């Protein structure tokens, strides 16, 4: 019955189709539940929670200069990476009709910033080059795809009356200025993402926020950790006040000056050795065919399979939990549902949820609950629940303001929530959820860095053991998984929402 409901032409009711999709999510999560590792292994989680909670309300920092420096370097990496990757992405978007460009963009964005950082670190060490490239390489891929899609949506009439000229020149005069507002809006949104990416790069040793955060947590300095977190949230919440177009050149100069002094030097010979030798298994280099086969079979049936399974299980559970959290929190930031008094604290809660990077949240939950998949599921669901809740509340708010002129006869309270508002927002909500599915999957692979046995765990271990061949193959598996999910989620989105919802991607 489910497949019949999922093919659109078979259904007569949109509500039934949406219910079927949600039913599928429950089913997938229930199937995953027995296999996922969700034990609580900490001895006294409540004591630790109390200490962290106390830290959160008593933020403090002994050395303000180092705090400013950590924040400054976090912004510097993000700003420079976006300043380089957005124009590169725009250029590549002009060539998006050429399939090698499409393939390259898909490949670049299917590997997470952290994995790129781990790769570049082998070549350039812990340096400015590594941090910058780790963000700008995948972001170029993302910009290429989104910009190309935006440009393709533009009206073609202006181009018709132009003389023959290079596509670059023609589009500079027509489609790019036509699409400028959405292009800028997306770049701005991506900058916020880049701030988070830059912060978590600290977890693998770059001098950004994550580095200080991890140190503070390890030493049990929860007030210091809280100070960092609050400062970061304030930074993100105030972007629109300090990111002024006219100031950007000044910021860029400061950013260059703020970057860590280690530029990262590597002789070209090593780079070549890394690409041509280090990342390939020894039997393959020796030309031993059956040995190569054994090597791949062992890796794919062992670590790759284990990691893949846990990654999928955890992201499936996180997906359902995200949905539940969205349904729980979006009313808090929806004025017509909770009134003006709870609206502001509700918005603050959602801001906290979406601007705390998953990695940081997972790290805290790991401290509390001990090493298992549970911290990852919670962190992913809370972060993404906050983000989608914010988008849903924003959409509802816009419709509310539009309707205020005309008096409506509507129920109130829980009835309004369950009969009017939620059904009205559900299609967009599900579309955003499937947009985030891809992100949740990518992130759950990444959280392995913290010791949860998803793909990232095996990749991190391989790098630690200097087994680049294994690391490379596992990253490849992760990338292919991401591309696959990208395709499936696009299909599901089309099912959930006949009209495309363009916000909230990424």
């Amino acid at each position: 019955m489910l497949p019949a409901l999922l093919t659109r032409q078979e259904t007569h009711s949109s509500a039934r189709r949406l219910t079927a999709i949600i039913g599928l999510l429950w089913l997938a999560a229930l199937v995953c539940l027995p296999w996922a590792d969700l034990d609580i292994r900490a001895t006294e989680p409540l004591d630790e929670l109390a200490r962290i909670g106390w830290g959160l309300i008593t933020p403090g920092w002994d050395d303000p200069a180092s705090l400013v420096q950590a924040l400054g370097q976090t912004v510097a990496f993000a700003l420079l990476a976006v300043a380089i990757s957005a124009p590169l992405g725009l250029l590549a978007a002009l060539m998006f009709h050429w399939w090698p460009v499409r393939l390259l963009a898909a490949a670049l964005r299917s590997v997470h910033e952290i994995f790129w950082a781990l790769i570049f670190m082998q070549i350039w060490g812990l340096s400015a080059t590594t941090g910058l490239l780790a963000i700008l390489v995948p972001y170029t891929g993302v910009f290429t795809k989104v910009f190309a899609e935006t440009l393709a949506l533009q009206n073609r009439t202006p181009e018709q009356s132009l003389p023959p000229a290079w596509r670059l020149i023609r589009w500079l005069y027509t489609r790019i200025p036509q699409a400028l507002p959405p292009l800028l809006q997306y770049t701005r949104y991506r900058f916020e993402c880049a701030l988070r990416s830059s912060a978590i790069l600290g977890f693998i040793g770059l001098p950004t926020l994550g580095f200080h955060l991890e140190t503070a947590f390890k030493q049990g300095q929860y007030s210091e950790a809280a100070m960092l977190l609050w400062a970061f949230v304030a930074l993100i919440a105030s972007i629109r006040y300090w990111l002024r177009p006219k100031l950007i050149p000044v910021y860029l100069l400061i950013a260059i000056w703020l970057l860590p002094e280690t530029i990262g030097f590597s002789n070209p010979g090593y780079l070549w050795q890394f690409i041509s030798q280090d990342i390939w298994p020894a039997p393959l280099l020796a030309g031993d065919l059956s040995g190569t086969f054994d090597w791949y079979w062992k890796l794919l049936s062992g670590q790759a399979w284990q990691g893949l399974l846990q990654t999928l299980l955890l992201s499936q559970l996180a997906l359902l939990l995200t949905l539940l959290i969205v349904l729980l929190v979006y009313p808090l930031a929806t004025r017509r549902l909770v009134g003006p008094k709870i609206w502001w604290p509700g918005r603050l809660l959602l801001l906290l949820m979406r601007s705390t990077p998953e990695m940081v949240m997972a790290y805290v939950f790991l401290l509390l609950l001990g090493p298992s998949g549970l911290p990852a599921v919670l962190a992913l669901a809370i972060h993404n629940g906050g983000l989608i809740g914010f988008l849903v509340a924003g959409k509802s708010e816009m419709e509310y303001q539009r309707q205020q002129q005309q008096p409506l006869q509507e129920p109130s309270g829980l009835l309004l929530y369950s009969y009017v508002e939620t059904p009205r927002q559900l299609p967009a909500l599900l579309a955003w959820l499937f947009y985030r599915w891809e992100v949740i999957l990518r992130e759950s692979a990444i959280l392995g860095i913290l010791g949860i046995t998803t793909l990232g765990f095996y990749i991190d271990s391989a790098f630690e053991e200097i087994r680049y061949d294994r690391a490379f193959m596992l990253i490849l598996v992760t990338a292919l998984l991401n591309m696959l999910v990208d395709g499936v989620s696009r299909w599901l989105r089309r099912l959930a929402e006949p009209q495309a919802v363009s916000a909230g991607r990424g």
Partner: protein
Amino acid sequence: MALFSLQQQSLGYAGRIVLRDISLTIRAGEKIALVGPSGAGKSTLLHHLHQLQPDQIALCPQADGLVELLSAYHNIFMGGLDRVSPLAAMWNLIRPLAQARQQVAQVARQLGIEAQLWQSVDRLSGGQRQRVALGRALYRQQAIFLGDEPVSALDPLQGKLLLESVLSQHQTAVVCMHNPELTLALFDRVIAVANGGILFDRPASELSQHDFDALYQGGSMTDEHASNQPTADQGLPTSCISPAQPGFNQSNREQ
């Protein structure tokens, strides 16, 4: 010399045939008006002609094809993109080239929009936008002009003056027209399109207002009324089109 020659061709768009088995020859030096009820296939025919040699044609499309965020200067300038180097074209977006500035200003003066040259076109009225679109076509500097109701948002007198000047600057012109008076005054050959084919193709001197009335009575009159207000979607104040234009509007009302 025949510029365009169609033999028994069927034209359409989106998989639908609009004009069936039409034959037509257009020679250099002719000034041709395309007339007929809305939806009869005037624009389809015009776009087909454009596609035959797009690089030698100055096109003025019906939806004016302006880029909202750019100034009138840039919108006109892009008609001459092929006359400057790619680097100069890029630079011109940041700082207008001195020579192009003079030339475009002259085109604008001729069109009466010199004062609006540096405004972004989303701030212009429907009539001003049509002048900018005409400006781009003029700045293409081609021998052939194709226009799809290029002066529909202007009042008849100004429309006549502008169209006259546009026609004098092109050796050959094919223009979709609505106003019979303008059509008879400015063109030397009139092709009427209706009912999926060419209804008549005659010198303007042999035609009278009466032929137009017949054309519109013979054609599909029902949707003509709605589309007889080309200005509505271009945000032009209604005062520009009233009092009622003579001709097609009138013939409608007589129905």
